Every structure is written in C-alpha cells, then in structure tokens.
C-alpha cells in the first residue's frame, strides 16, 4: 500500500490504529536493520525501533505532506540512533569511553550473527568509522540508497556524502588489508 493511503487511514479516527499498524509492518524491517547495523546488539535495536515508531505516532501531526514519508521516518530513526550512541558515549562521563570496544565485543559475542570470516572483518572495520560516516556507508553500501535520498535524511549535501563515502571505502579497504 502506498504511503499516502496509509497516511489517509491514520488521519481517519476510525482507522487510525489499523493505518498505523500498516505503517509499522511496511517499515519495521528497514528501520530495524538500519538501527541494528549501527548498535549491533539486538536488544538495543529492539528498544530503539520501538521508540522510533512511538515517536512517529506522537509526531505524525507534524509531518508535512510535501516531504516524502519514508524520508521523514528514516530521519527520525537516524536521529534516535545517533543520539543513542552519543548518550552511551557520555554515560560514564569519561572523555574516552570505549564505545567502539563495547560494540566490537557485542559483535564478537552475539549469538545472532551468521556471516563468514570476511564479512565479520568488514563489520569490525566498520566500527572504526565515526558514527555518521558509518551510517552513510551502511545506507549506501548495504541498502543501496541514492545520495539524494541520504541527503534528504541526513541534511548533508549529496556532494559531501559522496566524499564521505569514498573516504570511508578507502579507509575500510586499508583496514581490511592491514588486518
């Protein structure tokens, strides 16, 4: 079902819950995987994906219909994810809290992983990128999104994103080579 049809159902008080349920079912997997690749841990991703949809429910009245609905949803999801990671870093008031080490540990010990050795190496290398660069890399490399789409979500120019992605690719290839 098209986003506009779902939105119309959500706006109608009689079909509001049904419409929202359709929305969750349509986007839950894309949003979950976007978050999961960033936070690695399933329980964290589960909490975050729920918070994202609750926020969408609460802020639906603020959505302007001249924008694309999925862009708006992705923006909420990326902001929540980056805030989560930022809060985690600042949680212990330590200037160099090793979030990268924590995520790496979760990656190694998670029972819910099913990749070969090379894929695991790639994930480990990705953790060495800054959060925003990792997010952009994931959207481009794994989700095959266009720079224009990512630009609308992140608010960064398409040119800036291209440069960032190119830089990330070079960095990862070097990390994989050195490993």
């Amino acid at each position, binding site marked *: 079902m098209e986003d506009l049809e779902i939105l119309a159902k959500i706006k109608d008080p009689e079909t509001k819950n049904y419409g929202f349920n359709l929305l969750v079912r349509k986007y839950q997997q894309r949003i979950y995987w976007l978050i999961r690749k960033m936070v*690695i841990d399933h329980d964290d991703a589960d909490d975050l994906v729920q918070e994202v949809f609750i926020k969408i429910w609460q802020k639906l009245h603020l959505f302007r219909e001249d924008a694309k609905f999925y862009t708006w949803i992705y923006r909420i999801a990326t902001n929540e994810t980056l805030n989560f990671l930022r809060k985690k870093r600042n949680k212990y008031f330590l200037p160099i809290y090793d979030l990268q080490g924590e995520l790496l540990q979760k990656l190694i010990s998670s029972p819910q992983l099913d990749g070969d050795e*090379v894929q695991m190496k790639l994930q480990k290398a990705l953790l060495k990128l800054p959060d925003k660069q990792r997010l952009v890399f994931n959207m481009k490399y794994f989700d095959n999104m266009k720079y224009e789409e990512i630009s609308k979500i992140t608010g960064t120019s398409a040119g800036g994103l291209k440069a960032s992605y190119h830089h990330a690719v070079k960095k*990862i290839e070097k990390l994989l080579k050195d490993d």
Partner: protein
Amino acid sequence: MKLEEIDRDNIFKVPESYFDELPVRIQSKISSRKRKFLPDLNWSVVLKVSISLAAILFFVLYLGPQKTQNELSEPENLLAQVSADDVIAYLELEDIWTNDIIAQIDIREADLWQDDEDPLIDELDLDEEQLIDLIDAFKTEKDYL
C-alpha cells in the same frame, strides 16, 4: 581486498517471528503510555506533603479544641505550622500557578492604595468645609485648562 569482493548479505539475525510480533508490541506500548495520564511523581515530595497535611489534620482535630475559638478560626495560624518549603512542594505537586492564586484573592482597589494614600490624607487634617472649598478650587482650575 576490494569491498566489491565481499558478500553484501546481512549477517545479523533476529529471534524467530520477531517481526510478526513487533507491531503488536509497539501498539501495546503506545496504549500503555496513553493510559499513563499522571505525570511522574517525585515520591519524596509526595511523602513530605502528606506528612505536613497529616500534621495539620491532627492539629485541627485533636489539638484544635484546646485552643481558643479565635485561634482555631484563623487559617494563618494553621498555615504557620507548615514550612515554606512544604508549601512550595505542595503548590508544585498540585500544579497550582501564580495566576490561579491571584484569581482566588478578592483584591479591592482601595486595598492597593491604602498604604500610600492614607497617611497623606490624614496629614491634610481638613474639616468638611475646607474639603469642599478645595474640591471647588480644583474644579475651577480644571475648567480653565
């Protein structure tokens, strides 16, 4: 090694039927938050206010009859038993705003001017005839303006 050589498959997994159950869990979380209409209470404030109110009640019911009728009828005496901090905590708890309090007070205009004007009028010390002359003189002066 080039990135293109690496399989792009998703290596992360989820528990079985996770995505079947997620919409229901989200809906129930939204419903439970809607039901939660009361704001988060600071229980230490609630306790302090409750103790204060219980003390007032005790004072009124048991100690009150021993006081004179005059003392019992004055709410200021009762309020004086409560500390300023407890009153502030109570007002915050009840979400009472300054405007609500002002709306409950019967303010007469004369009360507002009382402190400033009374001493001045007293100092004039005019009898009725002098006062009428003064008003006439003021009216005449005003007519020329």
